[in-house]
């Protein structure tokens, strides 16, 4: 096959590609699907390498970790190829080779050793960049220590929201504001919590906006301006010949409401019909509609009170969030970005990174620029602040605004358009448009060209995120396949599912050489697969669903969750009953009923251990229960001794959980669940079971193992950047089903003024300001939908199947109705309408919700205990050391430490006295050492409050020894004496180091002595010493043995008590 990347081939956009490699200029490149932009990025990167002093001066920013590693890998591969392979004859590959060659030479002359220190290639995601910036600027970023990144911070947002709401009970102004907010939301704390949490999650978007002036007056002025401008626009289009009423703004609003229907889509008929010349005027209709929906010029007092409370609470909520982040030592990516911004901003503009990083960032490359967020854009502005054309620093941004689909992750396609027009910060960008499509064959490219010219808006508009379609030029010639539209009618999701299966099967069987063509099923929402997946399974088509199945829906995971809940809380009755019903135990309903106490206060665990109750069970049930009970008893006992994951996994294994799974993939699911459990548990427990359970539903089952002959199933978002031979897009008529409201909405007007509106009070009608701003949001969404469709359509190399469902109207002879504009099909309608034919609408089969019949409604899956016997695989044979329980009695108080510390100081000083054979030692000298003794005590950790007493004890011990005749004898000169004598020996087979306080040996006898600083008050002194002798006997025997002198005499000396015990010898 011809390979356009290597063959002598001149791409239609060759001049642009060549120009984009000019390392002295900055560019913005629009690179549509299939245009080979990664290769261009690599080439640019290589070109830059040969002109920088250090490789770190180039910062390449990618959208995903995967893209970063891919790009770095390709740069390294290019370098390697230039070193080891001959130059390809021509084409892009030859150009890459040449550039890599030049980079290698640079590397060699400057000694970078790039191939060995790949880390020096700064190719990373924006998140990683922010993390590394904040790491180097702990104070400027105000991070101090770097928190751990948390991808799903939902729980923390909620926690912060709760903290905010809790302020209602505290004194101070904030409480009043929280109260206003609560009142506005019908005092519904749960709803308020949710709204605030969502607001916090999206703080990246509004934080900067809200820092601006938000007093009532200026906000209302902006409101008034919008009204004026809107009415002016209407008047400008007013037909000259028609009479124009003289009205003020409110008058116009009232008038338009009279003339148009409630939804504003049509002119009203008589009697409130608009005058001749205006009526049914298609130009005026949309303008009037906008006027009709205009808000009042001022906020109502209630609105303002709520808005004002929100505005004032917002920074407090942010502060709460940071406290929560700090408490958990975690933060989301947004926090990193905001902190990086903060660190980079300073009075003079931007912090000089040279001083921080020790190198200057001179060139920046940004991939997927169309999905940049406001914060990221701002970050780029700061990183390039002060750059001037021709100063050797360049910015190179690449992206495809037609593929900007990450609005829900704060992507703002308008920024691309803005950069295209005005550059980024001080850097002007030269536009380059790529148009070659190396991916799809001509049939598809041409179809996409003609369809999307209609799907996408006619003119670009940064404010509404409207992106104009740019045509692609196919490089691959027309081939069999192309675009197929499959029409369906009247909610025929079953028919569609069947068609998907049929098409998929056929697509996979195409290739004659035995290899399989790649096939993907792409959907907008996971729910669109509800009926497709069972159908595929039924048809025996292997598929690999990427992040489709929620883990919470897998039976094995549900069972593990029940086990986790039961072990975590004895009173969680549902969970306890569940684990008894789960396959590993499998109690029948009758047995469960016999077991479960009427009195809810009695826990199931108590019931399970109640033999009298067990007697009511069937014999089989009893057996099952007993087996389960043992395992549970162990699990409960292990709590606090092992990690929760460990406890649960052990119990699951002991119950023969793996024998209950239906497919191998469920074992992987179990692993995913257990790993998640381990990540969430804190010191052996789950701090919030509910939150944990929710987090499990947000996990995805691992895709079934990949094999060549399987269909890939994923969302369109996931498919971005991928390509397949055949692509099937079912469920085009589906809706996204999201219509959430946020606490407040805002927008900037064309001249930069700020519009802000609070959510309407709970239970109230939508309010005009809020709705007006919300419409903008909806417009943005609608534009994005068109782009989503573009992404889906351009994944296909050879075949594209589009499936959608339209409604036929029984009243109008089965005419096909235009699908909703909020569905993909609605977007695509102009291009596909002709495929849908009118006909007799069948009965609406949708009924109440989706109806997929449940299987096995009355059956119970469980282990057959008689078939459970198996051999536990043998472990490795090895010689385990004997475990010795070493149990010194523990004093359950840290205070006990002081006497231990006194003991060690006494030992040290006695050692010295003995070393010096008592020469010159007396009470006076001990007294002179007072400060030194105190210093050693403090160094040993004795606290101030006990220092005097401790020092007195040390002195008493030393004096005792010095003045006691026994002490004098002991510490005085002896032949072959040793102090603190260290030996290594074996005790019960284990190697131990021992320290003998004092020993000596003359011709007659050897002595082994240990000092004990025990004290004793009152009577029974001798008894005490006897007891101590018994206690320490084994220790001294050990010493004698280690010395190899079983005949040595043993002595215990008590300097504080002037006591002495000796034995042995002879």
């Amino acid at each position, binding site marked *: 096959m011809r390979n356009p990347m290597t063959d002598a081939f001149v791409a239609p956009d060759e001049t642009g590609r060549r120009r984009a490699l000019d390392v002295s200029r900055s560019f913005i490149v629009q690179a549509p699907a299939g245009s080979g932009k990664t290769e261009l990025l690599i080439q640019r990167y290589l070109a830059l390498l040969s002109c920088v002093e250090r490789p770190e001066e180039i910062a390449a920013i990618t959208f995903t970790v995967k893209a970063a590693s891919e790009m770095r890998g390709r740069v390294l591969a290019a370098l390697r190829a230039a070193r080891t392979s001959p130059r390809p004859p021509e084409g892009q590959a030859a150009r890459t080779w040449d550039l890599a060659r030049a980079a290698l030479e640079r590397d060699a002359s400057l000694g970078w050793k790039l191939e060995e220190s790949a880390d020096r290639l700064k190719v990373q995601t924006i998140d990683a960049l922010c993390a590394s910036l904040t790491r180097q600027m702990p*104070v400027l970023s105000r991070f*101090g220590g770097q928190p751990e990144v948390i991808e799903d911070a939902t729980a923390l947002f909620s926690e912060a929201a709760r903290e905010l709401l809790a302020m209602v009970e505290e004194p101070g102004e904030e409480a009043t504001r929280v109260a206003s907010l609560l009142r506005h939301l019908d005092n519904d*704390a749960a709803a308020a919590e949710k709204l605030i949490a969502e607001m916090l999650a999206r703080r990246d978007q509004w934080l900067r906006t809200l820092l601006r002036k938000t007093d009532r007056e200026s906000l209302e002025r902006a409101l008034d301006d919008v009204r004026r401008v809107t009415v002016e626009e209407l008047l400008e289009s007013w037909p000259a010949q028609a009479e124009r009423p003289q009205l003020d703004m409110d008058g116009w609003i009232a008038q338009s409401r009279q003339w148009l229907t409630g939804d504003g889509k049509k002119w009203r008929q008589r009697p409130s019909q608009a005058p001749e010349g205006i009526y049914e005027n298609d130009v005026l209709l949309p303008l009037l509609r906008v006027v009709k929906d205009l808000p009042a010029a001022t906020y109502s007092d209630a609105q303002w009170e709520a808005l004002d409370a929100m505005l004032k609470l917002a920074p407090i909520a942010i502060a709460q969030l940071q406290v929560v982040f700090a408490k958990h*030592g975690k933060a989301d990516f947004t926090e990193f970005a905001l902190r990086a911004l903060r660190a980079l901003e300073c009075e003079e503009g931007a912090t000089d990174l040279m001083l921080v990083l020790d190198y200057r960032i001179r060139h920046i490359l940004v991939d997927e620029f169309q999905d940049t967020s406001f914060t990221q854009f701002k970050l780029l502005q700061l990183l390039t602040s002060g750059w001037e054309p021709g100063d050797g620093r360049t910015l190179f941004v690449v992206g495809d605004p037609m593929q900007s689909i990450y609005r829900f992750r704060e992507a703002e396609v308008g920024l691309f358009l803005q950069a295209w027009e005005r550059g980024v910060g001080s850097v002007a960008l030269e536009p380059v448009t790529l148009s070659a499509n190396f991916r799809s064959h001509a049939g598809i490219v041409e179809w996409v060209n003609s369809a999307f010219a209609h799907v996408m808006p006619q003119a670009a508009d940064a404010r509404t995120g409207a992106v104009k379609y740019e045509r692609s030029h196919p490089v691959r010639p027309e081939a069999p396949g192309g675009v197929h539209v499959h029409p369906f009618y009247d909610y025929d999701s079953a028919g569609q599912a069947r068609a998907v299966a049929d098409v998929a099967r056929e697509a996979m069987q195409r290739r004659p050489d035995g290899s399989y063509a790649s096939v993907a099923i792409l959907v907008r929402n996971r729910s669109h697969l509800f009926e497709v997946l069972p159908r595929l399974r039924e048809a025996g088509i292997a598929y690999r669903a990427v992040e489709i199945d929620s883990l919470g829906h897998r039976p094995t995971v549900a069972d593990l969750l029940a086990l986790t809940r039961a072990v975590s809380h004895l009173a969680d009755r549902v969970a306890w009953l569940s684990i008894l019903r789960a396959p590993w135990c499998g109690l029948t309903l009758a047995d469960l009923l016999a077991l479960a106490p009427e009195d809810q206060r009695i826990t199931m665990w108590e019931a399970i251990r109640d033999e009298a109750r067990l007697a009511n069970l069937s014999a089989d049930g009893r057996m099952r229960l007993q087996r389960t009970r043992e395992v549970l008893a162990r699990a409960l006992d292990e709590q606090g001794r092992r990690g929760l994951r460990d406890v649960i996994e052990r119990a699951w294994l002991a119950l023969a959980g793996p024998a209950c799974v239906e497919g191998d993939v469920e074992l992987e699911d179990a692993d995913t669940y257990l790993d998640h459990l381990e990540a969430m548990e804190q010191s052996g427990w789950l701090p919030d079971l509910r939150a944990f359970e929710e987090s499990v539903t947000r996990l995805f089952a691992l895709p079934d193992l990949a094999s060549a002959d399987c269909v890939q199933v994923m969302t369109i978002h996931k498919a971005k950047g991928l390509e397949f031979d055949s692509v099937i897009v079912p469920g085009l008529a589906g809706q996204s089903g999201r219509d959430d409201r946020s606490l407040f909405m805002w927008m900037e007007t064309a001249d930069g003024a700020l519009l802000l509106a609070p959510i309407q009070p709970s239970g109230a009608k939508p309010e005009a300001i809020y709705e007006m701003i919300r419409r903008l949001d909806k417009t943005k969404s609608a534009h994005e939908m068109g782009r989503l469709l573009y992404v889906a359509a351009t994944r296909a190399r050879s075949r594209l199947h589009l499936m959608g469902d339209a409604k036929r109207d029984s009243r109008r002879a089965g005419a096909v109705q235009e699908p909703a504009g909020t569905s993909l099909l609605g977007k695509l309608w102009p291009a596909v309408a002709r495929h849908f034919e009118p006909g007799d609408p069948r009965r609406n089969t949708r009924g109440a919700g989706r109806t*997929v019949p449940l299987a096995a409604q009355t059956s119970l899956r469980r282990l057959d205990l008689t078939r459970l016997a198996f*051999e536990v695989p043998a472990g490795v044979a090895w010689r385990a050391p004997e475990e010795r*329980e070493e149990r010194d009695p523990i004093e359950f108080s840290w205070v006990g430490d002081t006497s231990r510390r006194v003991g060690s100081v006494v030992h040290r000083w006695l050692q010295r006295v003995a070393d010096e054979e008592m020469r010159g030692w007396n009470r006076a000298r001990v007294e002179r050492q007072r400060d030194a003794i105190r210093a050693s005590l403090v160094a040993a950790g004795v606290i101030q409050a006990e220092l005097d007493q401790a020092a007195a004890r040390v002195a008493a011990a030393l004096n005792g020894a010095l003045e006691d005749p026994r002490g004098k004898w002991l510490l005085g000169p002896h032949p072959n004496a040793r102090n603190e004598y260290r030996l290594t020996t074996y005790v019960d087979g284990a190697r131990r180091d021992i320290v003998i306080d004092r020993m000596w040996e003359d011709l007659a006898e050897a002595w082994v002595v240990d000092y004990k600083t025990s004290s004793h008050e009152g009577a029974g002194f001798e008894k005490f010493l006897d007891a101590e002798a018994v206690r320490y006997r084994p220790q001294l025997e050990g010493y004698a043995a280690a010395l190899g002198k079983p005949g040595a005499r043993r002595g215990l000396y008590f300097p504080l008590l002037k006591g002495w015990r000796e034995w042995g010898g002879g």
Partner: protein
Amino acid sequence: MRRDLPQMDKSQLFERLSEGHGAAATVVTPNRRLAQSLARDFAAYQGSRGLASWETADILPLESWMKRLWEEAMQADGDGPLPLLLSPAQELAAWEEAVRASRFAKELFALGPAVSQCREAWHLAHAWRIPLDARRIPNDDGRAFLEWAAHYERTLRERGHADPARTADLLAPLLGRPRVRRPSTLAMVGFDIVTPQQRELLEKLAATGSAVVEVMSVPHKARAARVALADAKAEIDAAARWARTRLEDAAGSSPRIGIVVPDLARSRSRVERALANVLVPGHRIAATQPALPFNVSLGLPLDSYPLVADALYVIDLAGAHASFEHASRVLRSPFIAGAHTEREARARLDARLRRRAMPELSLESFVRQGEASGNGFVPDFIDRFRRLAEFRKSDLFEARVASGWARAFSEALRIVGFPGERTLDSREQQTLVKWHEVLAQFATLEQVSGRMGFQLARERLRRMAREEIFQPKAPDVPIQVMGVLESAGQEFDHLWVMGLTDDAWPLPSRPNPFLPIAAQRAAGIAQADPAASLELDRRITQGWMDAAPEVVLSHATMRKESELSPSPLIAMLPAETPEALGVRSFAMLREAMRSLDAVETIEDGAGPPIATGGTTRGGTGLFKDQAACPFRAFAKRRLRAEEIETPRAGLDSKDRGTLMHEMLRAAWQRIQTQERLLALGESECESLLAECAEQALGVLRGRGAEALSGRYGELERARIMRLTRAWLEEERKRKVAFTVVKTEDKCEVEFGGVKVEARLDRKDELEGGRLAVIDYKTGDCKVAAWLGERPDEPQLPMYALGGEDAGRIAAVAFAQVRTGETRFRGISAVGGLMPGVCTIDEVRSKASRQYQNWDGVVARWRQELDVLGRAFAAGEARVDPKNLAQTCAFCEQHLLCRVAEKAPFGAASSDEDAQSDD
């Protein structure tokens, strides 16, 4: 750095050490692990000479050796006692004081790690002789650090303490003191780096006559193999199988097998699990825990041990507000007294408290609520926590020095009976000892910090516990798993180093942010300079290759979706497979179980029928559940399955509903007739509403609704008054005059053999003698909920059919009382009785088309209710939700009914599209 020191090899070293103490040789290592491993090697050496005991060789980490010298010097007679050399905890506390005193303290997100980094910067600056000159510090972070450092130094000076960063410098002049034991030979083992500061000390030592030598290991002539594996999991698994293969092949002799894992901190548990599963597959189901032949040399933060975590939670709770979940953990902790004796009772109390508690609470309110709900069955708990509350009042508020706090904390723990009645196992014993040590260390902070309040004291203690990396002692075993640092200088029979991908090795540079990078690089600090890092890591890699006769270096080729390349430092080795190295596969427990064919499927769709006669508990809700899903009714009503709740702020919707009901009841008890309502003056009405609200709130408070105590309660009061006001407006509008004859009614009804109690919110007698029964609703309501099969809201129909005066009832209505939506909705026998209530033929819905008239409605009700009753009575428990997605979405029985098994593609799909369009 390859140094100019004289060298000796290991056998020469051991020969010297075997001469005993007389030879005065000291061996220093960069870390404890290596010191231990050398001691073990030396023991083997001595053993081979036939010795059973010998004079202990003096082998210790360099740091410990310096500390020992300092302690010796303290005893020596010099010019007065030496200053206190700060312990690591004290040192950190001194830095923390410095940072806290600065203008940044309030703003910093995480103080603790910043403090550690300061300390590190300070040590680096001293170790590598980086001048801390304000003019050379170019950036703001560096300047902040200088400010803190100045504060730190000043405090040390003022308090007369010695700086641990300068131990080596301070020791140099002390080397000559009489008690200071200078070794005649100082042997250095395993130092990949010697800092200039260390070097100076060693030179000083050499100048005083000690011989300083470097011990070189003789490289094993190893053939290093590179193994590439699919992902980290496969890599760990291969290493585990390799270790088992080698251990088995050694047949009885105990080889030393090393596994080096660079990111051990993160993958620790995975590695542990894989090794355990491969080496002793049955270990997790064995009756007694078998010994495992491997040991991971990495501790965990002390506060992650449950014993310590719980102690800290007790302290939190004792001194301040705690979240309910933390209080709940304390309540159910195994580490307080009575944990076993009162285990079930405490769980029960906890479940009860959860229903109405707030997410945050104080010790006092915890005790108060506990007394209210649990007195009697958890006496020990109540007693102890009451005493703790008293102790808190008397002893936990005043600021004091650290040792004072340590004492108070100990006392608090003593009061609750920490560490509990369960016998501690040996790991717990050691953990407890460590905890005491940390508490003792915390007490010594009094040397560097002054008095502090409870919050700060608790925070510091917690941080100390977190920063204390602790690992219970483990027996000597053949397989050692370690990080890169610990592997330095060790020798093995077999060594496997994993995780060597190009992004992980050489280590990416991570310069300390507080020192100028250029200065760090110039000083030669590897972590600050890619080139130096590459050199160092190349040396370490070579060290591994020399460390054993067999060396395997491995890396993964994929991580998540990204492809990975081998580290350039090992890429030149040809890739091999584990199989080529003779690594075997072993049977695993999970797979053995998985291959069992032991699953049976039986019919079990019904329980035994209910006992006949008598009333069944559950009221009309039972029929509602039965209609929604027979299994749910069985689980909830017969098994009485309920989950535990999570305290949330404010009232939940159930309590809010109750509150509204109580309010309206109180109102109609007073007003009674429409006539009176219409006659009610405005102020009269207001005071009536206020009275009613108070009564309603009182009812809820009486049930322990904590949320209603403060301002939230006031808001709620205002809300119910507002709503009631609006509602009365609706009632005023009614055209047919009425008298409220019942503001609550109960009656027994029976359908399909199930007798339950039906409750009614209200009954009106309309002008003309007809009756209307009314159900207050604070949520959504639709007439359709009464129609068709399996009616969603059977309550009113049940009452209408079975209640007193059933024959006179001519209208059933929901009274929807919610903000913005106050109206009646219902059906009646004839039109025009009440606003929003119409005859069935006026109801426009698909379901209503099945009915002719009121009598038809009533007859069908009976029929449907009988069907439901009969099914319930028969014990039916089909997993048959009326509408899969909606019915199951908020059903708490979803684990018990096993719906996941029956609807594999998402029964509860409500969450599905939560991630926007993703």
